[in-house]
């Protein structure tokens, strides 16, 4: 179990993590929050890159910094573009040595991970010859190399086309057994498909965590489809979401704590997320 206990991290005058406490059992967790919410700081802290000012992070009751098993964590940073002059195989070999994977297991392990991201046919190509999406997939492959118990993906689907996104979601569902996987993203759609639990952060605080249904239920009876013509008649605080056309009529999806003159619809995770952030 991964335990984050009273985690606080401050950068000069900004509190990046503000007393975060959460226990994570095996499963796939989505981490949502606006820019600057503290998601990356939290993930870097879990990876042992940032020491906390106060609090601690433990994995199986052992401090994450003292965890000697280097291959217990897999991490995909927000930007990934290392070792451009090496081939995919060589770069993976580098990560295999970093994770202290035994020589005899390296080849199989590497090929297995590269196959999961559908790049086996290009395994001996230089990284510099790959597209941005392919490099991202290599980043995913290095994170899952060595079968780590905790895998952290920071914006994993940035730059991936729809097919690659689907491939990523499939990879997650294949590897999720006995693992704690944390996915930070702005794309709520990715989280809906891959994650069973969602954590929402804002201003360094973990404001809500729960199942997908729980998060969407937070917007129950707060989501309305309103005629675009009636936009000016909206009451109180509201948030205008998607603008669509239904039966040749322009409608807007409105989130509001107050009852609006429109049809109430079933909320999505995205609705729940926005309601939490806007305080509806």
């Amino acid at each position, binding site marked *: 179990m991964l335990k984050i206990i009273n985690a606080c991290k401050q950068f000069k005058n900004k509190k990046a993590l503000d007393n975060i406490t959460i226990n994570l059992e095996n499963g796939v967790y989505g981490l949502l929050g606006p820019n600057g919410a503290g998601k990356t700081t939290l993930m*870097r802290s879990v*990876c*042992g*890159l*940032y*020491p906390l000012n106060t609090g601690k992070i433990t994995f199986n009751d052992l401090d994450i910094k003292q965890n000697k098993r*280097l291959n217990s*964590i897999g*991490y*995909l*940073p*927000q*930007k*990934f*573009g*290392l*070792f*451009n*002059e*090496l081939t995919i195989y*060589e*770069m993976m*070999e*580098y*990560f295999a*040595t*970093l*994770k*202290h994977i035994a020589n005899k297991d390296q080849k199989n392990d590497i090929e297995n991970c590269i196959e999961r991201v559908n790049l086996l046919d290009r395994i001996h190509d230089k990284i510099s010859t790959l597209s941005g999406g392919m490099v991202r997939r290599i*980043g995913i492959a*290095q*994170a899952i190399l060595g079968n780590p118990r905790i895998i952290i993906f920071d914006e994993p689907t940035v730059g991936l086309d729809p097919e690659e996104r689907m491939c990523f979601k499939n990879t997650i569902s294949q590897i999720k057994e006995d693992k704690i996987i944390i996915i930070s993203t702005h794309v709520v759609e990715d989280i809906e498909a891959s994650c069973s639990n969602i954590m929402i952060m804002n201003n360094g605080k973990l404001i809500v965590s729960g199942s997908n249904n729980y998060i969407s239920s937070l917007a129950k009876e707060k989501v309305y489809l309103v005629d675009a013509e009636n936009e000016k008649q909206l009451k109180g605080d509201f948030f205008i979401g998607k603008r669509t056309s239904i039966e040749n009529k322009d409608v807007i999806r409105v989130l509001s704590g107050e009852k609006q003159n429109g049809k109430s619809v079933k909320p999505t995770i995205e609705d729940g997320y926005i309601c939490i952030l806007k305080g509806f």
Partner: protein
Amino acid sequence: MYIKRFLIIKKQLYLNFRNVKGFYYIPLVFLYIVLPVLNIATIRQYGVCENAFTIICNDIQKFAPIMCSWWVIFAFKEYIEGDGCEVLYVYKKSIVLDVILIYIWYLIHITILMIVYSFYFTNIWLIFMRIAIQSLFFASGAYLCMFLFKSISISFMFIFVYEIICLFTNFGITKYISIFHSNSPINIRLMVTKNIPVIIISLFFLYLGNRLHKVYLK
């Protein structure tokens, strides 16, 4: 255990150097082509004599030690400027051993050069010791600069400017900061008094570099 660790670092260094392509060969070009050519020209001009030996020693200390920093800086290019380099810091908490291994690898090349020189000159092993210590200074200085400036080009420029100031200028401060030897005759006593502080400073740089590595992302 130690052998396994050594083999892991060796493999990582091999891949780091593969990643920098032709830049790896620059120090070797200086050691095995530029220096011998310069030295042969000196010998042709002066013959095998004390005067030629002094000029050759100066040429060696101009080019050989700084090239060690080249390898250190370029080997860890990805750790400083790579996109998403933080993932490397998750697994690698220190690169001191890697720097020392690069230094030893460089020393092996210097040794080969010195073996050839030893056929022509006596006292060459004192020069070897001097170059070895100066190379250690440059290797550790490069390690420190990388994490201090967070840029490989600025780090190398800084080291290069240091060398230019020490070798070619005559400010008052130069004699205190320079690790280079003037044309004075080589003897053990001078070696010890000049180089023991250089060794201590080099070790201090390694320590500082290691500290900066640990707080690199913070």
